């Protein structure tokens, strides 16, 4: 069984490797969105909501909304007074603008492959608040030990951009990963 998986993986990786590279060149353009969707296994969208980038991105990496289902974003935005132990309260108008952006681009509302995989790794009965607790994330990072995540320049598993240096562009591809040594 393991061999079958390995063969499938190699096939998949080869398919990705031969994909035309120039399609990634226009990541910043909205016009590129269609293409990006086609390369759904490689990239997510680029966060483009100013309020989300300013308010949420001030403290932590601005995670793509496609990484969690709408129900998770709703719960997060409704509990900002205790946001993983921190106070992240926002005024109502800003909070509702951000929630609207997050939900309309959430994992179940967008057709990226990664989003579909995250969705299918989540039981319907659960409302996960941490991307790092989704079965998909855990599976993808099983080779990374807890001590690596604790390195000073990384801090915790949710600091995507510490290793995925193009994460802000929606690119989480393994080949772009550079794990800081300390």
């Amino acid at each position, binding site marked *: 069984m393991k061999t079958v998986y390995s063969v499938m993986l190699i096939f998949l990786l080869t398919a990705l490797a031969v994909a035309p590279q120039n399609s990634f060149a226009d990541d910043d353009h909205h016009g590129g969105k269609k293409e990006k969707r086609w390369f759904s296994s490689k990239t997510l969208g680029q966060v483009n909501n100013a309020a989300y980038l300013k308010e949420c991105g001030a403290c932590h990496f601005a995670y793509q909304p496609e990484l969690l289902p709408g129900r998770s974003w709703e719960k997060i935005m409704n509990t900002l007074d205790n946001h993983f132990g*921190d106070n992240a309260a926002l005024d109502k108008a800003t909070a509702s603008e951000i929630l609207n952006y997050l939900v309309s681009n959430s994992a179940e509302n967008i057709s990226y492959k990664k989003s579909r995989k995250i969705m299918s790794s989540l039981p319907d009965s659960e409302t996960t608040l941490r991307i790092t607790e989704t079965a998909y994330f855990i599976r993808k990072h099983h080779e990374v030990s807890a001590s690596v995540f604790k390195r000073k320049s990384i*801090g915790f598993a949710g600091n995507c951009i510490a290793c995925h240096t193009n994460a802000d562009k929606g690119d989480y591809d393994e080949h772009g990963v550079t794990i800081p040594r300390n």
Partner: protein
Amino acid sequence: MKILLTLTAFWLFASSGVSFSASRFNPEMTAFVEGLEKQAHKDDSSFKGFDAERGRKIFFEEHPNEKLGKISCATCHTSNLKNQGKTTAGKAIEPLAPSANSKRLTNVKDVEKWLLRNFKQVLNREGTAHEKGDALMFISSQ
């Protein structure tokens, strides 16, 4: 004569306390600080104006924190406000000191938001007008 007038004007301005402290800020921020002053008076009639030294104490005072054990403003902003800080989630915080970052203390909406959030974060309660004003005096002196 002109020099004398200027000096007198400066002396009047400097000695008035309230206006002097507020003069560090743009008009929008000045109005905000004056609002805090009014509120501080209302809360305590013996209030005599904001004080950067009290603000410094507030900034460095440690408080118990569920996640980190202890927390102060300096935990994230570092003890030198001219330096870049770091959030607990690993993101860089641009210097808080206006002398190192001219954008600081210029936008009332942002200042109000962070004062509200960060007092709650560090002291586990909202800051009083008096405390907020003291903290602003300290930060603006850096």
